[in-house]
């Protein structure tokens, strides 16, 4: 994962910090401005839903697979919704193939929580036979190129892929699950939007690039739902925020979230 894993030379760092102290960023953006966001859906025909997201130079591909599955014993009347994310070793020069490290695990779990806690998908409607058969929805994400803010790019790809996903219609015949061949849309209720803000030397910046992440003290990710409520959060990295900074981050997340949600819904044909 990006932060700290390459050396940004002191000069560069000082320059970024100096610019920030004047409220400017090295790529010319405003402090609470998102990089260019491009979304392309229906890119993998073999998936039930898919989306390619570019957030600046960060590129992410999400694919949805929907099948029948068995529910967890403690939630017999809920379908399965599982988000996985892999930072491909090709995505940056300092990466190596191997099992996911703690950063990749945090990434997948935070994105998963953002989708799950917002109740974007009504998993209780994904039941074929209670306790026996449910729909299983796997969303897998490949991070293809890393340039900062993987949390948001991954989240946008997952949400966009889910918005475009169709489900095979399964029915129960004589206690056997049968695929009818029909397709149904996945029942989507809400569109949660993740927004990440970094604290660099006590200046907050939204959607940090990799060179900003390399010198950030801490980051916070806050998700909002369609009503502007906060629905998930995660502070990370070994620095801290003042309570006031967190309130500001929440305000930014609410404001920016509205715009991004609109763009994602349009890209997925939900506008």
């Amino acid at each position, binding site marked *: 994962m990006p932060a700290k894993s390459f050396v940004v030379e002191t000069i560069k760092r000082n320059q970024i910090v100096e610019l920030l102290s004047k409220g400017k960023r090295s790529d010319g953006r405003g402090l609470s401005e998102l990089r260019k966001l491009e979304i392309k859906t229906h890119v993998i025909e073999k998936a039930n839903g898919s989306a390619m997201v570019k957030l600046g130079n960060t590129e992410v591909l999400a694919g949805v697979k929907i099948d029948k599955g068995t529910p967890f014993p403690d939630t017999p009347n809920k379908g399965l919704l599982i988000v996985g994310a892999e930072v491909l070793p090709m995505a940056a020069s300092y990466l190596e193939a191997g099992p996911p490290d703690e950063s990749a695990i945090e990434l997948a779990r935070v994105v998963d929580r953002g989708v799950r806690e917002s109740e974007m998908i009504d998993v209780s409607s994904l039941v074929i036979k209670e306790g026996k058969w449910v729909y299983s929805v796997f969303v897998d994400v490949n991070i293809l190129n890393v340039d900062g803010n993987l949390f948001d790019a991954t989240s946008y790809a997952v949400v966009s892929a889910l918005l475009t996903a169709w489900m095979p219609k399964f029915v129960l015949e004589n206690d056997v699950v049968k695929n009818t061949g029909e397709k149904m849309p996945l029942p989507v209720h809400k569109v949660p939007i993740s927004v990440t803000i970094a604290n660099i030397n006590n200046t907050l910046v939204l959607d940090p690039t990799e060179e900003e992440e390399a010198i950030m003290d801490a980051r916070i990710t806050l998700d909002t739902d369609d009503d502007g409520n906060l629905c998930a959060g995660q502070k*990370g990295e070994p620095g801290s925020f003042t309570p006031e900074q967190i309130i500001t981050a929440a305000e930014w997340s609410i404001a920016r979230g509205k715009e991004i949600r609109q763009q994602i819904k349009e890209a997925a044909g939900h506008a």
Partner: protein
Amino acid sequence: MDENGIRTDGRRWDELRPLKIEVGVVKNADGSALIEWGKNKIIAAVYGPKEMHPKHLELADRAFLKCRYHMAPFSVDERKNPAPSRREIEISKVIREALQPALFLEDYPRTAIQIYVEVLQSDGGSRVAGITASALALADAGINMRDLVVGCAVGKVDGKIVLDLNDTEDKEGSGDLPYAFMPNLNQVTLLQMDGLFTFDEFKQALELAKVGGMKVYKLQREALLRKYFSGGGPETSTGSAEMMEEA
């Protein structure tokens, strides 16, 4: 919550569960603490500063901070497989990052400082309890600190923001917000959030977490005093966080 605002375990909305802390419980460790908070029973132990393994990961300008949060197989209702789960790996990371702001790691270049958090019995809020105990274990180990770190969670039950959820409330409630901060420096070092909070509820939750946390902080200081000033008890508790560095 009943009509009088009393929770299922009899607490008011802004009341902590019973909380007991003891410093210095693991003989071999350089520092340690046992916290019992509700039904949580958690030991935090610290080793270090010590030699870093593997050598090539040591940092020239500061100590390498490691943290392992782990749950005993018998700590939860259904036996837990002892191998570290993805949840435990994530929590290990956020606990480490919640404690690091309080540490003068630059005082110990090329060394490792290791924090172990073992959950012997789990209840709601085990990660904030683990942070609270770990801060004491670090102080007990004599690691130089800017401040203690206090963990405390708030949540949302029956549409109301309440302090310090227990297991049942966590499962049935509509929101949980684990929180940790440095009480004297007014810096938030951990924040996670599940569930649904309006912006106003969110602000209210942060306030309540701080108020609850200051009560925890008082108990933290008393626990340290009991260990380091043998006659010490609640009534003599006047120390501030600065004294940690002498401890």
